[in-house]
């Protein structure tokens, strides 16, 4: 990624990029995950500089932007939020689909015959990782997650704002899905531990 494109992204997130260039950049972003990550990073930085959130190393962020654009080496200890591709994907889906589709994996799977019963009986309630962007981080419990789901469904019936609510539900579910994956992984590890060892 060269300086020109970095500066273009920076201008884009600041809303200063001319429309024609912004359209072109967005088209490129549609094809290039690296560009999207960079735009997201700059957005985070912009929010931080506007005091919208607390980011470690905020006093050095401007330096980082300058360093990025100048291609200077960066200090390792500067903390900048980075999109986790695995966790970012599911909230995204909510834009276009019912969040509850993905929620199936969390909120009590009703298995069709022949499906792994371990998962069916797994009522693990994931602890939602707090979003660092919130002024007052809060923990969302299982009941509240159910409420978001129900709200999303009802809003959809009303025809307005339903998708946004579903989006939120999906966002919540994303964390739970990650947690479930972790549980699956742990259980797999446990199973491996139980394997008889070779004499």
């Amino acid at each position, binding site marked *: 990624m060269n300086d020109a494109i970095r500066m273009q992204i920076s201008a884009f997130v600041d809303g200063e990029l001319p429309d*024609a260039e912004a*359209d072109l950049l*967005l*088209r490129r*972003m*549609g094809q290039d*995950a690296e560009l*999207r*990550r960079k735009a997201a990073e700059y*957005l*985070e930085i912009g*929010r931080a500089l506007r005091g919208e959130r607390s980011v470690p190393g905020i006093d050095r962020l401007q330096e980082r932007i300058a360093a990025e654009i100048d291609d200077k080496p960066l200090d390792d200890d500067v903390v900048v939020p980075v*999109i986790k*591709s*695995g966790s*970012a*994907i*599911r909230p*995204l*889906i909510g*834009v*276009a*689909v*019912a969040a*509850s*589709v993905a929620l*199936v994996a969390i*909120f*009590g*799977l*009703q298995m*069709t015959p022949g499906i792994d019963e371990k998962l069916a009986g797994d*009522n693990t309630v994931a602890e939602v990782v707090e979003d660092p962007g*919130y002024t*007052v981080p*809060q923990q969302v*419990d299982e*009941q*509240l997650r*159910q*409420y*978001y*789901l*129900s*709200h999303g*469904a*009802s*809003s959809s*019936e*009303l*025809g*307005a*704002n*339903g*998708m*946004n*609510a579903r*989006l*939120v539900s999906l966002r*919540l579910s994303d964390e739970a899905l990650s947690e479930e994956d972790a549980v699956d992984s742990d259980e797999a590890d446990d199973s491996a531990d139980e394997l008889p060892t070779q004499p």
Partner: protein
Amino acid sequence: MKFRRFRPLLWPALLMGNLSCSATAAAERVEPSDWLNRMGAAVQTTSYEGTVIRIQDGKAEALKVVHTVRDGIIREKVVAQEGDGLEIIRNGNEVHCILPDRKSVLVEEWDDQSTLFSTLPSSEVRFGSEYDVSIVREDRVAGRQTILLAIRPHDGYRYGHRIWLDTETAFPLQTQLIGEDGSPIEQVKFAEISLNKEIHASALAPSYSTENFRWYNQPSRHVSHNLETEWQSKDLPQGFRAVLTHGETLPGDEHVVTHIVYSDGLANVSVFIAPGDDQSAEGPSRVGGSNSYNAIIDGHRVTAVGEVPAITVEQIARTMGLR
């Protein structure tokens, strides 16, 4: 005959040497509410294929979307462009969520017409009361000419919206949810799009063979409609009114929860009332543009949830009580 009819419109524009002025003038002659009505029809009937960029909480992400409507039946394919390659395939009311890395398919029935842009205002919004709607300017999105509409709330109890509508079709090419400080909370924008072009069935087919995948069905909520309740808010924010009241049994909870939905026509707030007096649960919570607030009232946990500012859910939750 046609030339004569259009001439009064064309000549001034040609004299000015700027055809876009003509387009703007023509667009501005259409009332904002007419644009919204056209948009409502467009999102229900337009077939499209393109790439959507969504920006929220500092994350920018891309989706490939193919959407067709034929004989009133929606068929849609959504593919996330990063991560685990997840796909959503919709065929009418049946939706399959394919998780290739988990070799799983999640199945759900939809009974609504939810689409990519179902966050848009319905015809129930009372513009002029809680919101104003206006045409801001002409703009370009995804290489197409658009009209930017702004929906501005009159107070801090609801969010605003900006919508860029394709001048030709009134299809929304970009939407923004606007927070109390005027900045976007969430933005959805087409980076590129083809409208109303022929879409082959193969474009809507899954990219994966799901033959050996595990299939899951979603448990349904148990809803009993038209529940009579003594609960009500004693100080609702201006413009909100109760539009739905349900009794619900939610998964994992044997109690029947009273669910009341308040709406101003655009923003919705759900209030859930369940037995419980856990004081530690009291307080606010937030996810993206949605807020919730828990209050303990008369031995009940009262929770308000909605895509509204924190002040709105707090006021509604804290003012709930028995008649």
